[in-house]
């Protein structure tokens, strides 16, 4: 271990992804070469800026997007000063001055000061309702505005502007994109591709004001509109500026370091000052300032090698590729994209399928490409451009779709060191090694292990291809191609549930935003499903979302075809008393119910109750809800059992009542029915219930997965137990396992065929510790349940919200 004093002092100004990624690479190459000090203006350690949107949605805390914890800095002996701004660099004395007046000496200095959004300097730009699009506050303002205002304008038709516009459109605003030029994304697309993209976006509902220069923002304190160069105006109550970013060069410029648009660097990231380097969005290399993540990793790698005395090829610039991710619009662009006299262009424009492909070739070498409407070959095209591949018949056939490309071949030629996930800097090699070493079989597992696809998800198709290629025959495309839980998302039930747990999502709105639902308000399929999953995962934290409940579960009654409701009070184990029967009869008379029906579940249904009478009838009954409408335990059917029956070996009524009282009211993936029989004659139909219990001398048999409904299925024997305690623990564990792994609306009869009885036996019967853990989680969930009828009666606000009606007598004016 070298002494501190022997080491060179390295200062990093800027505590973001560029600076810290460089530091990480230095530590890998030569952990003891430098004594490192980091200054950051923000009060946090290094975090993942790409994931700020999650913080905004409260789906992740700041802590969760931290890439390097304070402990990491401490472990690596790095001195970290957060909330500290560097105000000046004395390049002669080699010291930096901070806002507190202190001077710190350096031998080597890395500037990683990043960039900020550019705000158009036009009259009225300081009005309320005009924001950039970069940080938490901006996103919060956007969400808030969507709730209050309708008309939005986004200035800037580049990548950032279109994504902001799409976001506002999904929030229900009327959005117009204002663009100075005639073509969208003119820095990545040729006119044909731009116009195709614009048509697609117009179909999705975006409006465009093209070729318009913003001259002035109109309005009083708050913006009300925009006046353009030609004198025309556009109404806008909310404006997002997304015209570009500006490298933060002020510190370097004030300290006499050469700056242009960015801090000027050479191929080793050296600035004009000796010992001072610049990396990331703040620099300008060969006339280019990059605003993307991938070049930052490439620059950091070169700089780290240089600083550690390791041989390195100089940084020759990055082939910038752009992938726009807007649902229903695939756009990819890399390298050169405009026609020129010295280029050979391969072009395909299918106007019927709205696909446009273009490959640009100079001297036989592929130098660029544009794909619109079909970006399946983007990984390959980018690789060819990076490596300067020579165009040939095979490549031509592949990219133009003339040849049947075998699945996964697009990534076969990707170099090991190629960064697949730009957001998290994950290379192909890292993914392949993870798949092999840990025997991964799904993209989800790759995400958990390597972080690839974790942030924006844009690389998911490529990651999936790498998985296919690595697993070969073992790749189960059926498993990989699970359909989404509804049309709002491509994510499967398991992906959604995993993400909820991982990201700590508590409300279904958070889920829909954090997991980028196409339809941010959800639909009648996912809304009730998410409400269930969240309640199951966070029994204490999640507040039930009434607006996402089906009518029956929202109103706690069974809606009928005439708009009236059925009311079914509990009758535990199908056992009642004369007093209760009398009360039910009196109430039925008082409310003039249309019919009293004995149900299949051994209780009484009062049919034809008016919606507005529901709370009053519950109050008069004074009985708990029988949940005849719910995705929860309905009834526990019982036979007479040993209390009276000559054949009864067990007290089935007693056990049925115990079970019904224990498990009632708890949300399940689907309706759940139970039965307890006192002997094998099966008078309570245990063989067609989700759980059927059959008593015989000295033991209980437990049958599961039965169904007497649409798809009749006989229950199968799970196990036999001797004591009532064992019986209850097995039932608790079984129900909880089903709650945790079942898809919403999937009955146990389908679930058990999907999971397999053997698996269920292994988890519930053979694994005592696992069984106990499941039973404990069941107890925790049961602690949260409340009697819904009484809850509505006790809570005037809730009652008003669900049942309150407004009556306006007839005969107003003109009637």
């Amino acid at each position, binding site marked *: 271990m070298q002494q501190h004093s022997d080491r060179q002092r390295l200062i990093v100004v800027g505590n973001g992804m560029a600076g810290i990624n460089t530091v990480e690479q230095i530590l890998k190459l030569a952990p003891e070469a430098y004594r490192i000090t980091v200054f950051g203006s923000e009060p946090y350690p290094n975090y993942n800026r790409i994931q700020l949107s999650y913080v905004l949605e409260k789906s992740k805390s700041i802590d969760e997007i931290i890439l390097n914890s304070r402990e990491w800095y401490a472990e690596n002996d790095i001195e970290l000063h957060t909330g500290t701004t560097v105000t000046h660099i004395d390049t002669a004395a080699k010291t930096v001055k901070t806002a507190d007046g202190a001077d710190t000496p350096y031998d080597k200095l890395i500037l990683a000061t990043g960039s900020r959004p550019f705000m158009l300097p036009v009259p009225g730009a300081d009005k309320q309702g005009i924001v950039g699009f970069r940080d938490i506050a901006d996103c919060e303002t956007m969400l808030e505005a969507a709730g209050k205002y309708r008309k939005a304008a986004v200035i800037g038709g580049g990548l950032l502007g279109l994504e902001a516009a799409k976001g506002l459109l999904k929030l229900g605003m009327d959005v117009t994109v204002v663009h100075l030029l005639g073509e969208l994304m003119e820095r990545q697309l040729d006119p044909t591709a731009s116009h195709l993209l614009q048509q697609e976006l117009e179909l999705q509902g975006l409006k465009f004001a093209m070729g318009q220069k913003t001259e002035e923002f109109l309005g009083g304190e708050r913006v009300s509109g925009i006046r353009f160069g030609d004198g025309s105006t556009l109404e806008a109550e909310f404006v997002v500026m997304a015209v570009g970013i500006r490298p933060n060069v002020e510190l370097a410029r004030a300290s006499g370091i050469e700056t242009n648009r960015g801090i000027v660097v050479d191929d080793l990231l050296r600035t004009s000052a000796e010992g001072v380097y610049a990396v990331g969005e703040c620099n300008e290399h060969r006339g280019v300032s990059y605003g993307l993540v991938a070049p930052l990793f490439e620059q950091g790698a070169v700089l780290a090698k240089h600083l550690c005395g390791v041989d390195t090829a100089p940084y020759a610039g990055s082939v910038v590729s752009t992938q726009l991710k807007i649902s229903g619009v695939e756009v990819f662009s890399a390298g050169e994209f405009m026609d020129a006299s010295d280029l050979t262009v391969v072009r395909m424009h299918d106007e019927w399928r709205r696909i446009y492909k273009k490959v640009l070739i100079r001297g036989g070498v592929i130098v660029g490409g544009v794909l619109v409407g079909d970006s399946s070959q983007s990984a390959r095209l980018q690789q060819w451009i990076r490596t300067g591949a020579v165009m040939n018949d095979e490549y031509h056939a592949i990219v133009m779709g003339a040849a049947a490309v075998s699945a996964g071949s697009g990534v076969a030629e990707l170099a090991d060191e190629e960064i697949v996930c730009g957001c998290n800097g994950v290379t192909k090699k890292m993914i392949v090694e993870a798949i092999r070493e840990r025997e991964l079989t799904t993209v989800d597992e790759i995400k958990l292990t390597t972080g690839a696809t974790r942030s924006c998800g844009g690389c998911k198709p490529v990651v999936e291809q790498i998985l296919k290629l690595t697993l070969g025959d073992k790749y189960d495309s059926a498993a990989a191609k699970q359909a989404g839980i509804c049309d709002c998302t491509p994510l499967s039930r398991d992906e959604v549930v995993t993400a909820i747990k991982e990201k700590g999502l508590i409300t279904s709105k958070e889920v829909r935003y954090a997991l980028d639902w196409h339809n941010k308000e959800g639909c009648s399929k996912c809304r009730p499903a998410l409400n269930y999953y969240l309640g199951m995962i966070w029994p204490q934290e999640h507040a039930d979302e009434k607006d996402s409940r089906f*009518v029956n579960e929202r109103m706690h009654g069974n809606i009928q*075809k005439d*708009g009236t409701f059925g009311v079914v009070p509990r009758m535990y184990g199908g056992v009642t008393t004369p007093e209760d029967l009398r009360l039910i009869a009196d109430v039925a008379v008082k409310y003039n119910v249309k019919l009293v029906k004995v149900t299949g579940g051994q209780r009484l249904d009062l049919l034809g109750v008016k919606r507005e009478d529901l709370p009053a009838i519950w109050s008069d009954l004074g009985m708990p809800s029988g949940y005849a409408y719910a995705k929860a335990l309905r009834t526990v059917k019982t036979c007479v059992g040993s209390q009276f029956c000559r054949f009864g070996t067990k007290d089935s009524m007693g056990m049925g009542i115990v079970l019904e009282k224990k498990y009632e009211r708890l949300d399940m993936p689907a309706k759940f029915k139970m039965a307890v029989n006192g002997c094998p004659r099966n008078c309570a139909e245990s063989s067609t219930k989700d759980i059927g219990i059959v008593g015989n001398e000295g033991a209980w048999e437990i049958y599961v997965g039965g169904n007497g409904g649409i798809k009749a299925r006989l229950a199968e024997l799970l196990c036999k137990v001797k004591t009532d305690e064992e019986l209850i623990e097995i039932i608790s564990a079984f129900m909880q396992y089903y709650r945790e792994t079942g898809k919403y609306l999937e009955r146990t009869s389908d679930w058990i065929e999907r999971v397999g009885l053997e698996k269920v036996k292994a988890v519930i019967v053979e694994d005592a510790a696992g069984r106990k853990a499941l039973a404990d989680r069941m107890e925790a969930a049961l602690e949260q349940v409340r009697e819904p009828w009484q809850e509505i009666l006790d809570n005037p606000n809730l009652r008003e*919200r669900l049942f*309150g009606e*407004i009556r*306006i007598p007839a005969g107003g004016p003109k009637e």
Partner: protein
Amino acid sequence: MTREQLEAAGYRLVGNVEQFPARIGKLVRLGESEIAVFKTTNGELFALENRSPGPRGGTIVDGIVSGGVLYDPICDWRIGLADGAVQAPDCGQVAVYPVRLVDGDVYIGRP
């Protein structure tokens, strides 16, 4: 329009905007008419006749509201809140009542 103009045009004051919770339908009985009133996430109010357009009858006030769309609680058809039109692949029409706001007071007009 002013309150006087609205009343002259046959609108009736039915309550304050605060009485209408977001995404939970509220039943308004205006004389003999049953009207289901919905407030969307971004605060817009819509009023539709409380009758399912589907083949099985029933009411729509307790449907699930998503943006400007109501999912019929009986047949799960999608009904546009603004125009009452049933969206593809199904078809049908629910009568729509015009809604006007004056200083937070909600007026409903004739369908």
